[in-house]
């Protein structure tokens, strides 16, 4: 069936996107030339690097380690701080062709509140805030904010008060039960959930006989983690009524389709983009082929379809 223009469009809560494909945080330069067509063909929106109140130098030592079909990273949230981002980058990237999602790393409650207050002054330039709750809760013993429902709820409630625009909450796979954490985030006021973040792993260099990373552990991404992420999406989407955005190992049109069949409304793409700048337009093309072949009029028709027919 021939598709009408706009068949790729999806809506995340109140945020319409021209395609369901989102550039994952921390994978894309902030240079304005990267936020304009034709570079961004196929892209529905792009997440900024994680923003913190103060500039962060990031982690020392080795930051990258390739694994079979995957990539371990230990970047350490390096960024220029929210004020410099607002002054130097935001006006330029917001003038591009794709929607800007500000990724905010949950720090202390005070710091996060200040970051959101600063971003709130520029709300018109942002399609949403994506709150990363994989970060440690320094005031609460160092466990990740997203580790359990109680702490995730506290983080989201705080941010809901400070940010009036669309609030997406990026969950961590390192949690007790994704369904409980997802439900807690929904109840605390999240408008959408991003499921999920990198998976904690590690590597040991057999030449030096020592861990590769200064912090020992690192986040695993890339095609290797896709089945794990898909399972989380299925579970989270079963637990909540708000939109879910799949994230983790998406590298082909089939992966986006699977994420949407499992209940996601969109998918974030990161690691594969490192190797192929045309992957978004390639994936959108394959995605549209699927819609056409299966006779769907709109991308939204796919959402959760894998569940309905069970």
């Amino acid at each position, binding site marked *: 069936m021939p598709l009408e223009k706009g068949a790729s469009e999806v809506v995340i809560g109140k945020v319409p996107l021209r395609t369901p494909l989102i550039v994952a945080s921390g994978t894309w330069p902030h240079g304005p030339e990267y936020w304009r067509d034709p570079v961004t063909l196929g892209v529905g929106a792009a997440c900024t690097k994680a923003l913190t109140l103060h500039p962060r130098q990031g982690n020392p030592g080795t930051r990258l380690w390739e694994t079979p079909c995957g990539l371990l990273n230990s970047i350490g949230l390096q960024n220029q701080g929210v004020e410099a981002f607002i002054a130097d980058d935001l006006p330029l990237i917001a003038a591009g062709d794709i929607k800007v999602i500000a990724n905010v790393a949950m720090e202390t409650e005070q710091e996060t509140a200040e970051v959101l207050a600063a971003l709130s002054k520029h709300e018109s330039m942002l399609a949403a805030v994506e709150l990363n709750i994989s970060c440690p809760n320094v005031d609460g013993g160092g466990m990740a904010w997203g580790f359990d429902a109680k702490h995730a709820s506290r983080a989201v409630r705080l941010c809901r008060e400070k940010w009036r625009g669309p609030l997406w909450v990026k969950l961590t796979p390192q949690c007790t039960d994704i369904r409980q954490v997802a439900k807690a985030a929904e109840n605390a006021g999240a408008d959408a959930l991003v499921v999920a973040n990198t998976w904690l792993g590690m590597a040991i260099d057999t030449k030096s006989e020592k861990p590769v990373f*200064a912090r020992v552990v690192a986040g695993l991404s890339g095609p290797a983690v896709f089945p794990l992420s898909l399972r989380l999406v299925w579970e989270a989407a079963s637990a909540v009524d708000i939109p879910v955005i799949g994230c983790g190992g998406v590298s082909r049109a089939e992966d986006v389709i699977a994420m949407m069949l499992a209940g996601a409304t969109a998918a974030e793409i990161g690691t594969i983009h490192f*190797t192929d700048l045309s992957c978004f337009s390639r994936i959108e093309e394959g995605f549209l082929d699927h819609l056409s072949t299966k006779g769907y009029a709109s991308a939204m028709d796919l959402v959760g379809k894998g569940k309905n027919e069970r």
Partner: protein
Amino acid sequence: MCLHGISPRMLDHEVILSDSLKLGEKFFVLSLESEKPFPKATPGQFVMLRASQGLDPLLGRPFAICGQERNRIEVVAAVSGRGTRIMASLPAGVRLSLRGPLGNGFPVSPGLRIQCLAGGMGIAPFLLPCTASKELEVHLGVPGQEWKPLVDWASRKIPGLHVYSEDGYLGTRGTPLLSLGKMDPLCEAVWACGPTGMLKAISEECGERNIRSWVSLETRMACGMGGCHGCVIQTRNGPRKTCSDGPVFEGKEVLWNAS
């Protein structure tokens, strides 16, 4: 930024391996042809090369450009891991993904007299300008005998190449740092590429001698264009990305003891 006015979309090329030259067991030279001409590269600029059409190995590998014509780029490498082992064994005619030219090369300035110091595979960037310029004096140091195929090949490319080896089997016994003691007084700058320890020593010695030095660094990279922050080094100007702020930095800018 590293793009020099080039659209990011123009960075990725599908290339054909037109020739693969083996230099002994350890070294190889790949000639890569694209349908479209590449933007002109400066010495020190690099490409991310990906041999696999599948997902493993997943990432491209950075290689300094050692030769360029309109639609052809040449890289030289040593087999050092899985990625380079696969590349060394590729037959002519296969397709690869190439991203580049990337990064900022050495500060080329017409008429400037330069002394180039290379350690091992660090010779690669100095093969690019040396065929076109008489203003460069190149010194290459290698560990020893097993590097003879590379040294012989580089010597044919760079007439007058000064060679050093730790065991004295090839050229002068010692390292290219020896050349700094006998430097032409008209020489205005040192360019260096090689192992980090050597670059640090060169940078420090040039500092003591009041000579400006530029060094080309090598780190692990994922995207090669400033997206992932995986290749960051520490400098006097804060953290900098090797791929898009470098890979060439002024020696005195680098904080050599910061990891």
